[in-house]
């Protein structure tokens, strides 16, 4: 399985079939999700319409962490097996993850201003996501800092792997510390039986999350293909 997709040509053919499917799913899910989130779902009894920021904020936070975890897996695969595709994925996904983190931080600030009365507090959740943002920026800077691109990939993969320790800190920051940021409304067992989020709000949230996942995967695959093409061009130029 791991060696099977090391071949860029095989990846290319897989990407060709996968891309239209993912793109269509992203379009439909995001379109429906946005209408559902912004118009159909009920306003919150305390926050009224400001709660709709959640449908962007929470999925982008999921994506920021999901992409980082994927990058961590790719980094390990690259370090252990020198897997070319893992390296391509790492380089393609890091800026996308950084964008997701930035969106999460900005929407969080926009939400915090009316709800908490402040743009920013130095609470554990906010600070650990800020550290995630800095990590993304540092890794991206590291990939481009070398005359030999393979050294950039090695360094970036290692820093990604080391930075993985931040993910559980983000996830559990709301439980380990007393934070202004609320704890998760979705992922604990007693919440499953006794949900904190009504179905009418959960539905658009999950649709937006799924749609954003598809959209970001499309972006990552397009970026990976562009990188493959750029490398081929480079190689043919070197040969010529």
């Amino acid at each position, binding site marked *: 399985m791991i060696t099977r997709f090391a071949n860029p040509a095989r990846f290319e053919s897989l990407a060709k079939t996968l891309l239209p499917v993912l793109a269509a799913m992203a379009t439909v899910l995001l379109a429906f999700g946005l209408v559902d989130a912004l118009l159909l779902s009920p306003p919150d009894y305390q926050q009224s319409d400001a709660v709709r920021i959640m449908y962007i904020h929470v999925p982008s936070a999921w994506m920021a962490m999901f992409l980082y975890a994927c990058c961590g897996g790719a980094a390990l695969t690259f*370090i252990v097996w020198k897997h070319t595709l893992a390296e391509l994925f790492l380089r393609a996904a890091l800026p996308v993850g950084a964008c997701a983190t930035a969106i999460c931080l900005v929407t969080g600030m926009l939400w915090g201003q009316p709800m908490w009365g402040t743009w920013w507090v130095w609470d554990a959740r906010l*600070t650990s996501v800020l*550290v995630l943002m*800095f*990590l993304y*920026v*540092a890794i991206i*800077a*590291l990939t481009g*800092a*070398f*005359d*030999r691109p*393979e*050294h*950039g990939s*090695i*360094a970036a993969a*290692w*820093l990604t792997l*080391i*930075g993985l320790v931040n993910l559980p800190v983000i996830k559990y920051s709301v439980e380990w510390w007393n934070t202004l940021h609320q704890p998760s409304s979705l992922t604990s067992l007693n919440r499953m039986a006794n949900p904190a989020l009504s179905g009418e709000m959960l539905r658009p949230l999950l649709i937006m999350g799924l749609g954003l996942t598809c959209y970001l995967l499309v972006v990552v695959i397009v970026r990976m293909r562009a990188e493959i093409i750029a490398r081929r061009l480079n190689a043919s130029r070197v040969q010529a």
Partner: protein
Amino acid sequence: MMVVYRHFLRRMTRDRGLMGQSAGFFALAVTVCVFAIGPDAVILSAVLPGLVWALQLLSALLGLSDMLEGEDLDDLLLARTSLPAAMCAKALAHLTATGLPIAVLAPLAVSLLVPGSAALLPCMWLGLALSAASFSAIGLLGAALTLGSRRNAALQALIILPLCVPPLIFGAGAASAAMLDQGWQAPMAFLAAIACASLTLCPFAAAWIIRMKVTSA
């Protein structure tokens, strides 16, 4: 390993004068911050622990840009000492040259400046020594990561600073707690755990990174 450690330490202190530089930088940086904040004793004693920790981190960055650069890597790779052991020696030499002088002297200065803080001395000595050890180990990792890159010093700071946030938080947290007469043992225990983990794991990671870079050439 002791031989390698002494060799590195001699190069860092005698050849480059790192010990005086970092201690001088730290003293000047604290003075500059105090000038900027103002001489109000109440405010100063509230911010001083955090300030000491942040500036200790910054002065640990000083010796890093040439920690591995200019070193003959082939010598290290071919030496009889294993590469992780050599890396560990390097981190310890950096700790001795930059971290420990500050860790010893800064609490004394604080106890002179802030009246009634002499009881904090053991807590601050221990905390600063432990966080200096983590900073040196993590700094070694940053030096290994940026080895061979074009924009060395700034990039290193960009990499190391986010990774150094946990020891910074727990160290400064322990000192502030001690200053407020609260229990500082819990953050200190976390700090000790971080220091142990980084001192033992970072040399191996750094050695692996360097080997990967050399073999991919």
